């Protein structure tokens, strides 16, 4: 099986070193979910929800952002120049050594303390 290594920094700052197969047709969002990292992927990978928003920390040649991803990030808060939607990045051998950080949760639990 072909595998690459990906490093993920979660929202608590903890590092996760993942081994990811490149021959299963996965995208990055599906990979993060399969490792039970807190990424929802609500829309199923259609760039329609931003629940897989992450920051790319390494210098990799990633697929260009499509219109849907750009438009979705335009509606998302806490967007930086290295923001991407993980669902729009297909896992390939080119991603060996990729390092990314999960963006803050879209909605914080503390906002609903009065519920």
């Amino acid at each position: 099986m072909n595998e690459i290594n990906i490093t993920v920094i979660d929202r608590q700052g903890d590092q996760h070193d993942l081994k990811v197969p490149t021959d299963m047709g996965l995208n990055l969002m599906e990979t993060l979910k399969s490792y039970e990292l807190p990424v929802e992927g609500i829309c199923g990978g259609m760039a329609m929800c931003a629940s897989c928003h992450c920051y790319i920390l390494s210098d990799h040649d990633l697929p260009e952002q499509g219109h849907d991803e750009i438009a979705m990030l335009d509606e998302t808060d806490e967007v930086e120049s290295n923001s991407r939607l993980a669902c729009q990045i297909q896992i390939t051998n080119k991603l060996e050594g990729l390092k990314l950080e999960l963006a803050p949760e879209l909605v914080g639990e503390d906002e609903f303390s009065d519920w």
Partner: protein
Amino acid sequence: MIQTDILIIGAGPVGLFTVFEAGLLKLRCHLIDALPIPGGQCAEIYPKKPIYDIPAYPEILAGDLINNLLKQIEPFKPGFTLGEPAVQLEKLDNGHFEVTTKQGTVHRAPVVAIAGGLGVFVPRRPKIEDLQRFEEKGIAYFIKDPEKYKGEKVVISGGGDSALDWAIFMADNFASDVTLVHRSKNFRAHPDSVQKAFDLANTGKIKLHLDSEVYKINGNGKLDTVTLKRKEGDDVQIATKHWLRLLCLTPILRPIGHWGNRKKCHCGQQCIGL
């Protein structure tokens, strides 16, 4: 107080079809949903997306699926409490259940079906000072009662279908003074709606502020002004009593996730024990 045979929490596809199945057994249903429209994530996140996992439909638009379900359950005349998240579930002495919404609407039934999916849709709040102080006093995240914006000066933020559809509707039908604010020049909405919004902007019926976002709000008890930060140029202050931030909503499992004692059930799921 609303009394029914089956209370259904969540008016998504599963909740809606529950009405049909219960209807066949002559049981009346009442649905509760935080969104102001039925359909759950199919209606809120991707109404124009084709979906492929519905039996007998190789492909159907999520919005069409919801419309079909609504038509299918029409004969059973379900009740709806929309725009109100269910926040409390209590077991009564007679074994029935009482479900109360955040707005205080009380429902009772012998059976509660939780079809909550990913949870309740809530707004993503931007980091703006005093934001929560003005919620329901000028700031809204979805539109429950459109009539209150008739002829009013309204600022709408967003670049998706919800923001554009409401901006067009209010400018066309309500003679409202509509300002549409969007962070970029790219819209996520249906191309027809984008064209219509630009046409209305050209005729002065909608004031369009692209590459801009609201970053400051002001008022004395109620909203009076919003201030836009622009990618280029000075800030713009707009006097308005209504700022509608119609951007994506996000589902969270709270409060359903906190109900009852969660135990590993014989069905293999985390079921709620009351």
